[in-house]
């Protein structure tokens, strides 16, 4: 009897493991095929470097210190721009979200500017700020400000009026209402905005660094183009992907911590 049980359970857990990992098989297969095709000379290196070549170049760029140097420059630009974007976006959202007068003052203007593709401002920014750090940081700041503003504003306005009413029957002052009910209630929405802003930040940086720069990951990629180094270009793309993924992961961890009260997190 026990032998029969054992023999039926063992294969089923084995196939469970298999089911879990089999979804990673197709991308792996693509990489293998890519390598095979490149080694067989079917894909010219000028069009697309092989995976092995990319890995080699990646290691080389790291050991030479070139990639870390450019990466630090890019990270600095994103951090500064994002910081400014968050501060300005949050300030605007608080002003517009917490008072009708503030909304009348800011919202229409910001909603109009929001519809403008902000990357189209690059030529103007170069005219205004030159070609140094300022236009790059300004572009990141501008791009990230809107998602922060929109989601925090919507979050503040979306807080359940019944909770605010309950708060006032508990004798909370306006300041306490904000602190205990309105701002924490707006946080889930604002964190969606933060995640979105991080995506926009990388996007703006790619554009800014490819147009006019002498450092940064974007510059690395653009100068590689001049020498037909597809391997370096692909390393740059790989770095962007890793940065995007880890930024997203940071926000996920943050959400898990500050939104622990939500049922979706309560289950684990």
């Amino acid at each position: 009897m026990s032998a029969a049980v054992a023999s039926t359970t063992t294969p089923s857990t084995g196939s469970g493991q298999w089911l879990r990992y089999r979804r990673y098989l197709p991308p792996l297969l693509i990489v293998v095929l890519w390598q095979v095709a490149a080694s067989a000379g079917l894909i010219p290196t000028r069009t697309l470097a092989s995976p092995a070549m990319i890995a080699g170049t990646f290691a080389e760029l790291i050991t030479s210190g070139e990639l870390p140097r450019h990466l630090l420059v890019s990270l600095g630009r994103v951090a500064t721009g994002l910081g400014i974007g968050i501060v300005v976006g949050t300030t605007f959202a608080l002003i517009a979200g917490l008072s009708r007068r503030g909304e009348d003052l800011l919202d229409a203007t910001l909603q109009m500017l929001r519809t403008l593709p902000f990357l189209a401002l690059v030529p103007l920014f170069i005219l205004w700020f030159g070609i140094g750090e300022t236009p790059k940081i300004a572009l990141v700041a501008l791009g990230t400000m809107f998602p922060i503003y929109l989601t925090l504003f919507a979050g503040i306005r979306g807080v359940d009026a019944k909770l605010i009413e309950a708060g006032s029957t508990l004798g909370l002052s306006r300041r306490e209402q904000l602190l205990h009910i309105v701002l924490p209630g707006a946080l889930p929405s604002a964190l969606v905005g933060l995640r979105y802003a991080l995506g926009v930040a990388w996007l703006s940086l790619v554009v800014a660094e490819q147009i006019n720069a002498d450092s940064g990951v974007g510059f690395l990629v653009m100068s590689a183009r001049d020498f037909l180094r597809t391997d370096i270009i692909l390393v740059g793309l790989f770095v962007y992907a890793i940065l995007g993924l880890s930024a997203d992961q940071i926000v996920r961890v943050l959400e898990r911590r500050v939104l622990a009260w939500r049922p979706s997190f309560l289950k684990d």
Partner: protein
Amino acid sequence: MNAHPALTARQHPVVQVSNLVRSFGQGSNVLDGLDLTIRSGEFVALLGRSGSGKSTLLRTLAGLDEAPAGTVTVPAERAVVFQEPRLIPWKRVWANVALGLRTADARERAAAALTEVGLNHRLDAWPLTLSGGEAQRAALARALVREPKLLLLDEPFAALDALTRLKTQGLVASLWRAHRPAVLLVTHDVDEALLLADRVLILDQGRIGFDLHVNLERPRRHGQPAFSSLRSRLLRELGVEEENPDEPVEELRAPARSRAPAASATRENHAVWAASTDALARS
């Protein structure tokens, strides 16, 4: 009533409303010259059809709506329990109860209040993990921890399932006995009103149309003859003709009433009728 010292001590009015008028938009007044006195420690139930202004009156007493005309005197120490628990989801249960308390022992007081409603094991739980009954008990604890002189209950049992409702009603009765706040309970349920209240009021056309002192001994039961006769009386005042009363109470029945207008009245008061038959089925 005999002049028992404990009784006279809590005879002074805590709520005094005179000539209260409230209207929404251009229509007729929802509250139209309403007068109401609630004495200290008194348990008052307020019945009325949907849209009769019961909740408007409660909200005015809670200070949630401004009273445009008339005078309203209410104690500063008052608390509200709504139909939904309205717990703050991002504050743990004890912090919800302690919210707005400005003393250093806020957590201890919250814990004591939660123990009183049987939730001492859920102090650190998130509100969204509570069952409906637990959440409403937490809301009761949050009201009681403020030691209110006036407790306003806006259909607090309406969203609970039948069994939980009975338990929670029992809890409210015992909490009221222990703390003796004046209570205004807004409800659709005639049985619930008779089970809990000293006085049952019916709000009709913007005023208190009917004021019934309930001189039944506690604890009360649905089956008692005196209970049934009061129940029939209230239902009749609400315009509902019972089709199948527990016991025929001859002297209280209007003999010459025809069935046809009663049927339309029943449809009009569907909510009241449904609530009371529901309670009937439970008892």
